[in-house]
């Protein structure tokens, strides 16, 4: 039950592709999950959100804060 409660707080990392300009800062912050493609855009994110495990939530928040284009956000996973 307590595990279920923790899962309910799981966050999704969402990229806004319209804003993303391929600075690549997020990859430095969250290298455990992201890497750069040939143009410098991050692989491992999507516009529909990719789950971030709890142990990486600090790194994910850093990636969001440090994005020069403000293209990343963390959202709570929808219940449905």
């Amino acid at each position, binding site marked *: 039950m307590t595990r279920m409660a923790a899962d309910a707080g799981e966050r999704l990392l969402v990229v806004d*592709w*319209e804003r*993303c300009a391929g600075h690549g800062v997020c990859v430095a912050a969250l290298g455990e999950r992201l890497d750069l493609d040939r*143009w410098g*855009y991050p692989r491992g994110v999507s516009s529909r959100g990719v789950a971030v495990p709890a142990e990486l939530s600090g790194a994910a928040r850093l990636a969001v804060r440090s994005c020069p284009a403000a293209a990343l956000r963390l959202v709570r996973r929808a219940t449905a």
Partner: protein
Amino acid sequence: MSTVLATRAVPVGLPGLVVGQRGPGPLPRSLLAPGVLLLAGVRPGQLVDRVAHDAQWGPLPRPGLPALIDAAAREHLVGAGGAAFPTDRKLASLQGRRVALVVVNGAEGEAASGKDGVLLGHVPHLVLDGAVLAAQALGAPRVVVRISADRPDLAAQLPAVLASRDDPVRVELSIGPSAFVAGEATAVIRALAGGPALPAELGLPPALPTRGLRRGGQVLLGNVETFARLAVAARGLPARSALASASGAVAGPGVVELPASRTLADLAAAAGGVVGEPTLLVAGGWHGRWIRWDGVAAAARLTHDDVALVGGRWGAGAFVWLPGDLDPVESLRVIAAELAAGSAGQCGPCWRGLPEVAVTLGHVAEGRVPRVAFEALVADVEGRGLCAHPTAAVAALRSALDAIGAVA
């Protein structure tokens, strides 16, 4: 002399694509013959007016939402814009939600498709019936019919059609840009909310973005053909037929409605027959699949399942036979460049990726670089971006490489 294959000196026209020059080719925009259900008895070029429509179909039914969902499920209705999402599930997803708007998407960004314009030009009341009864069932106060600016004929004709009805909800006409992605569902909704006609992440089901509108709310957006079939299904009638656009290396490009039990060979015959011995068919439009045009493909029935069995895709029902005397690699180059140009330019992996894909594809097709170069590149394009364009474009181009390999 055929209208499609003139001479080498004259550019070979594909719908929306002319090798060697930009500009419209012979678009499949005319109805070729009376249809069998939605267009039954309708003469090409003839508008079925309100009186004739009422005489044929009777008054507008008013099913509640559960009955409408049942009718859509009974007739196995799916979205006819290309995604083939089951209509009953789309309606059910809006149950209990506030629906602000019903959008009839006739923006037809797919140049190889002409069916939506044909329906709006011939049987607009059937289309409007479907949208209005859906709006009533959902409690939506407003219906918008969205068409693209490259159809001034429809823009001129539809206001009088709307005026001849006395609908219980507000019905408006909206005219948008004619770009490929401008007809994508979220782009249409975004434009109607005062934004640009570019794809957006609006969630499922899509909601009107609150910015630019006083109050948001859910949106039911459906393709023109989907609403016409819904109008038939809601009357308790069978609503199945095959509505397809045929173009490319056929003598008379256009739109035909046939029983779904007929075949791709019948579709080609209805479009005047193939000319110049084509060996390739693009099934499903520019986001579709390239397949070999052979006896197996010709025998496929005009259903989603049969077309998929021969490697094609139904999509929006657009079929383009590639001229047999045109180098397939040249066709591929033009179509790849057109798909790259079709990017809205919003998402890096799409606007940077597709032009590189187009160049690499040409090299692979000529055998100058190995196929793995294409696959490595598209790994950085597929599944990325906020709309389906890059992923669909790559799938189409991959099938083209396969098909060209098969005929070479």
